């Protein structure tokens, strides 16, 4: 019974195994980035960037149909233009980063919607918006795993400057010229993981696997390492449960995964030991001075 529910779908169906592998790759790549976005109070930046990717993917689709390569490259280019453009405006003009990002991503989104609707009515476009985690082919899986690996390696290399750029940017600028490079490398990672995520979960849901586990992790761990580990665990568990629910109850898989992650967030918010609602209201004895 438990075997039938939990294991059989993955044991019996190749597409479920592929979906799980794809989701784990996306989870491992995206959650550390999500943790840093959260710590830098940039959670909504992830959302804006996810929208910004849309026209690139749509143009890729216009040029060569439902091609993995074209849509990936299109998404990366659109995401990078918005990230670099808004970063550039923020660093060299009076406009702050949030406003310039909003301006750029709204332009990008409007363009995306325009392109999608002129070629609308095509079922394939559902792929762009909601992803096809249950139909990942070999090349898609290789792409997701490569992006996750590149993302994790880059993060490992840039870990120290990135932490310092978040914690004390002024100090980093005073000792090193890496500040700007670190910031743009980080934005590149955000874009890359969102593009990987949209193949599996769609543009709208990709940001969910990045931000929700990070927000949930805040209630379980305090250090950066702990936060990343907790976030990855929440994301992988959500993928597993979400895929099972989607399989047994014929739900669309992307939203099912993100909803489970959302449930994980709500549970963490209530029961998490680090500042969760219950933990905060339990009577606790304090230390002597």
């Amino acid at each position, binding site marked *: 019974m438990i075997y039938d529910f939990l294991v059989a779908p993955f044991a019996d169906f190749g597409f479920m195994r592929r979906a799980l592998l794809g989701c784990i790759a996306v989870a491992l790549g995206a959650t550390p980035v999500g943790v840093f976005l959260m*710590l830098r109070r940039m959670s909504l930046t992830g959302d804006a960037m996810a929208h910004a990717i849309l026209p690139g993917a749509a143009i890729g689709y216009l040029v060569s149909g439902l091609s993995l390569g074209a849509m990936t490259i299109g998404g990366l280019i659109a995401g990078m233009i918005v990230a670099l453009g808004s970063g550039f405006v923020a660093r060299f003009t009076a406009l702050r980063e949030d406003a310039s990002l909003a301006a750029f991503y709204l332009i990008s989104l409007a363009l995306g919607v325009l392109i999608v609707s002129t070629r609308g009515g095509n079922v394939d476009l559902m792929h762009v918006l909601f992803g096809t985690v249950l139909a990942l082919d070999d090349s898609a899986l290789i792409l997701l795993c490569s992006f996750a690996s590149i993302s994790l390696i880059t993060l490992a290399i840039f870990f120290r400057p990135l932490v310092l750029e978040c*914690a004390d940017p002024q100090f980093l600028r005073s*000792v*090193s010229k890496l500040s700007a490079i670190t910031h743009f490398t980080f934005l590149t990672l955000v874009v890359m993981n969102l593009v990987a995520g949209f193949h599996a979960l769609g543009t709208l849901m990709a940001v969910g696997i990045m931000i929700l586990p990070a927000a949930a992790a805040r209630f379980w761990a305090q250090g*950066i390492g702990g936060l990343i580990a907790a976030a990855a665990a929440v994301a992988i568990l959500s993928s597993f449960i979400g895929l099972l629910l989607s399989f047994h109850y014929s739900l669309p898989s992307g939203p099912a995964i993100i909803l489970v992650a959302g449930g994980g967030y709500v549970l963490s918010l209530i029961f998490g030991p680090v500042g969760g609602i219950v933990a905060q209201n339990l009577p606790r004895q304090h230390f002597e001075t």
Partner: protein
Amino acid sequence: MTASVAFQNLTLGYDRHPAVHHLDTEISEGSLTAIVGPNGAGKSTLLKGMMGSLSPLEGTIDFSGFEREEIAYLPQQSEIDRSFPISVLDLVSMGLWREIGAFGRLGRARRTQVSDAIAAVGLTGFEKRPIGSLSGGQMQRALFARLLLQDAKLVLLDEPFTAIDAKTMRDLVEIIENWHSEGRTVLAVLHDYELVGSHFPQTLMLARELVAHGPTNTVLTAENRFRARQMCEACNSTPHICGKSAA
């Protein structure tokens, strides 16, 4: 004495409004100098200019004999995100950036250096604490520990003792005096004339323009202080395009 920093006709400002106006003076190597003056006199602006985060509207700042990386700077309002989950140990260790850079290993010898620096500011036992749990004074001690590790030839401190209790101030002044005895050049923006008089041999008084610069007892006169206040008040009237310029 050789000049460590030379300001030549230096004008720094924001949006064409000068905050430091035609400053011509030199900081000698190994000196311990207090920068004093009323609010809005351009003291912090001068330090920002030295750090290169503000480019001169006119004139130059010359550093003889050392690199940008050999200057350590403690800003008045630090941009540190106190809620960011790093420990005191992590924060202080970053003082070794010039040695280990972005990718180098900390290693055992350097770990000892870090604990020595933490001990020197009296924060032993706080290594594992997240920076968010420190009090204002403890945070300032941690930042001084980081400065200790930076091993800089020129140390710039912008109002390092604001909102700091007397005990902490005494401890940190001792560290500053140690730097001085080690031959480092130290510049500190301060408001406490008593402190300046008793611990800082040199004083530079600013009121956008230079009021006086030299041995502290000759600079901190009632007359100079009165003049500085007057000059600053005059500055706040309607600005005209400045005709005073270098030939």
